[in-house]
């Protein structure tokens, strides 16, 4: 008796496939159809958000550890790249990869300390991570440039700005594709199932033989690596780093907001969230101009999501589709004790015939 989850093409999946192809087509064509360089730069910002929240979702989505501190990892990636270029003399993209690897390496001790505690304590630690890195990068002025910021030299000197945007748009798009691919691979693997077990009940997962700490650490490092890459790429694109904005809790919380809005259990959840929130942020900015009402709008949006769509947009859409699809009946059948007794006997024979 095939159940819903085993049917190959469900309406949800079909819709997802169509949406994915459409998104890819639009994304690839965007630099050519964007009416002006400004909108292209908005596209880059949105893609950057998408990469960041997808990276965040390696930890948040699989293990359920909500980190408000991923902004720090992005900031480290950005500063790492910048410092390797300016002080280390590395070529831009070499510096980017080295910096992301360094962030990943640094994520091992950070994760080692932070992942020992769960729930609220983890959130606090993650917030502390941002504040600590902010303090360090502000105070250690001789190395980092302090509050005055750091200027990252252009990877393509002399390139005019519109062209520069175009190149980076594709770079971000490629990075997003890789991050999504890795997430998808983990999601369908046994490793992924183990991570999800951690999200549900860590002790139980441990008792079932899952090396929970190692699993968490590995996925944290993977997440840090992608976050570092996103931060570094942003640094190369943007050029000016300021500790206040690189190490901001707001960055981390945007990642959470986006992932949550789209749906953390969903491959494309963070991407959808980034599209919605990124575009909304730009819209608020244009709409409310010079007032801080964009903060209010962000807050209200987050609150609405938490209150009314805690599982995100995609699952909400999914259940809507399922309700529309009359052919699928409820996955729970009801059986009386008598039927159960009969079924047990049948089931036993079934099992035996298979073993035999």
């Amino acid at each position, binding site marked *: 008796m095939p159940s819903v989850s085993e049917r190959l093409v469900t309406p949800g999946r079909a819709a997802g496939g169509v949406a994915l192809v459409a998104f890819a087509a639009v994304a690839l064509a965007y630099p050519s159809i964007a009416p002006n360089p400004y909108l292209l730069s908005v596209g880059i910002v949105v893609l950057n958000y998408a990469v960041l929240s997808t990276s965040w979702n390696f930890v948040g989505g699989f293990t*359920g550890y*909500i980190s*408000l501190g991923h902004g720090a990892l992005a900031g480290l990636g950005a500063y790492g790249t910048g410092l390797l270029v300016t002080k280390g003399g590395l070529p831009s993209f070499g510096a980017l990869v080295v910096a992301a690897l360094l962030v990943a390496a640094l994520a091992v001790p950070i994760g080692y*300390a932070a992942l*020992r*505690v*769960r*729930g*609220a*304590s983890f*959130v*606090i*630690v993650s*917030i*502390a991570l941002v*504040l*600590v890195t902010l*303090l*360090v990068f*502000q*105070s250690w002025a001789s190395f980092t440039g302090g509050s005055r910021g750091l200027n990252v030299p252009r990877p393509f000197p002399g390139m005019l700005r519109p062209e520069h945007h175009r190149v980076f748009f594709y770079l971000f798009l490629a990075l997003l594709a890789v991050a999504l691919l890795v997430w998808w691979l983990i999601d369908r693997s046994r490793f992924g199932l183990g991570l999800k077990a951690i999200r549900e009940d860590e002790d139980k997962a441990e008792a079932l033989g899952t090396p929970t700490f190692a699993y968490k650490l590995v996925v944290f490092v993977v997440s840090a690596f992608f976050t570092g890459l996103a931060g570094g790429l942003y640094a190369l694109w943007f050029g000016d780093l300021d500790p206040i904005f690189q190490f901001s*809790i707001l960055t981390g*919380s945007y990642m*959470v*907001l986006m992932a*949550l809005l789209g749906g953390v259990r969903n491959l494309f959840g963070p991407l959808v969230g980034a599209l919605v929130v990124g575009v909304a942020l730009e819209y608020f900015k244009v709409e409310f101009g010079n*007032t*801080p*009402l*964009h*903060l*209010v*709008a*962000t*807050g*209200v*949006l*987050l*609150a609405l999501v*938490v*209150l009314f769509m*805690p599982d995100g947009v995609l699952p909400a859409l999914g259940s809507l589709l399922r309700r529309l699809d009359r052919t699928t009946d409820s996955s729970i059948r009801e059986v009386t004790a008598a039927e159960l007794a009969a079924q047990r006997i049948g089931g036993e024979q079934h099992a035996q015939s298979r073993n035999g």
Partner: protein
Amino acid sequence: MPSGALLFQSVILGLLLGGLYALLAAGLTLYFGIMRVVMIAHSAFLILAAYLAWWSHTELGVDPLLSMVVTVPLFFAAGVLLQRLLLARLRPVTLTMMSVLLTFAIAVVIEGLLGYVFSGTQRRIQLGYGSASLELFGARIAVVKLIAFGLAAVALLSLYLVMKKTAFGWALRATIQHRDAARLVGIDTDRVAGFGFGLGLATAAIGGTALSLDTTIYPSLHWHWIGPLMAIIVVGGLGSVPGAAAAAMVLGLAQSLLQIELGTTWAQTVFYIALFLTLAVRPQGFFGGRLAQRF
């Protein structure tokens, strides 16, 4: 080597600062340890209270301390509403996580509205006694800091007594630990949880007023406070009011003394170092917290 005068002056400043931290952390402790809600917006409410104190001083000309007559009940009511209308809607299973995000949203909304109404400009109450001070064995104690310290001490003590000695305190703890069972012994859990939250916010009103006496305020200032306060309640032991108070005093003093050699910025890292050490060595906190490791 710092001079003796500087050391003594720093000790005094540290103690005064610690008192303020203690008050500000107390409310957080309440939601966090007892209600399992991570209240990111606490410091945003602090700043809000500080703004109200500032506003009533500049616009109405009343002493900021007097503004508490309005802000304390107002914040209590706001807390009850916040709990009943928003937090109560969260699913119990994901309460801890989702409350982080929800209160984060509230914090951002408050920050945005403060910015909208009062602009992002830094504000400071200009008090007649703003730069007055008393002398103590060669050191100086600013009058405003002393008042803030006194407020903190009184508010903390009252809070402790309410939680330990009243039926309300019991009912609150029972409600949080097993809501259905609490309802079944006859506790009006909705009301109790609402009042608990109101109480926490009322401390924010007092803390904010104390803060406004001697600091510059601006809408995004709450980020500056949230880190040290979170660190304090973890070090003190989640849910323990005396623990928070002790940790606040110790860390405030440490910060003040470290500033002599390290400067203001590096000295702030003491909070985070203490936080990491605590989680590594004694996750339930150093001064209290019984089953806190469960969080």
